[in-house]
């Protein structure tokens, strides 16, 4: 359990931040896709800028992880179709139920029990992708 405590604590922090930023709110996602507020763009934009700085600094400082390896970000495979199509499918779902795969669990924590059906459906969706994977263009 000890080795997992840090992950649990990071998760708690993540949950608190996403609730306090209102990024878990369906309303904020709707507003974002309507381009009617800077709020969500500010969150994602400042997260990315901070992320770039942290990653560049870690590289410069040759920072090592707690596992003893150099800190590195896993690279995504090259491709186009899977990212455009898959991304669009996710975007449709994200805009429809206002929750991406992190906020789903956070929202259950805030007491929205109907979110459990969304999680269940997302698991089925992931399974469907796995089953159809060889037939889809990537």
């Amino acid at each position: 359990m000890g080795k997992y405590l840090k992950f649990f604590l990071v998760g708690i922090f993540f949950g608190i931040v996403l609730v306090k930023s209102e990024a878990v709110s369906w309303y904020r996602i709707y507003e974002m896709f309507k381009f009617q507020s800077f709020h969500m763009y500010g969150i994602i934009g400042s997260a990315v800028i901070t992320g770039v700085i942290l990653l560049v600094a870690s590289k410069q400082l040759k920072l090592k992880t707690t596992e003893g390896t150099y800190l590195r970000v896993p690279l995504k495979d090259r491709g186009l179709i899977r990212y455009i199509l898959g991304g669009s499918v996710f975007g449709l779902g994200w805009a429809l139920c206002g929750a991406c795969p992190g906020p789903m669990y956070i929202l259950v924590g805030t007491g929205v029990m109907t979110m459990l059906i969304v999680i269940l459906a997302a698991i089925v969706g992931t399974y469907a992708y796995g089953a159809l994977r060889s037939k889809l263009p990537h």
Partner: protein
Amino acid sequence: MDLILEPWPWYVSGPCIAIVMFLLLYFGRTFGMSSNLRTICAMGGAGKRVKFFDFDWRQYQWNLIVICGAFVGGYIAHNFLSNPININLSEATITDLNSLGFKNIGKSLLPGELFSWEAFFSIKGFLILVIGGFLVGFGTRYAGGCTSGHAITGLSSLQLPSFIAVIGFFIGGLIMIHLIYPILF
């Protein structure tokens, strides 16, 4: 304390999310929430039927712990760290949602029109939650990541595939909000 109880501005929240990403990388892992859905499929034995789920899910236990923490964080933030919710949405958004027939806009994190039990037990409400969730699960795995993996981690490490995926997120989102919502509501 008031500063904590009030909603946090974007310039505090965004860097905090980057810190979450950084900590997970620092622990030798990565920030990707949708992978958990695949892990859960594998845990349930999907690997026996579908090769995509045939891997040792135990190596991803740490990520399941992260979402358990996120669940607890949501509980704590909502019950102990929040004033009554009144989301400061733009006037234009409120007007648009009013015209779609939404009430009590921004008075809770999610609209009762979609997420109350009453909505759940209507055919339309049920289908919205199920289809929405299905598309999220299917799309994130197809694209190899979601907001955390692509929009935050991928963009922070300047990866082109993630940039393409984020464009995809917006293609889907804009189609849903601008073309499909007017039919649904």
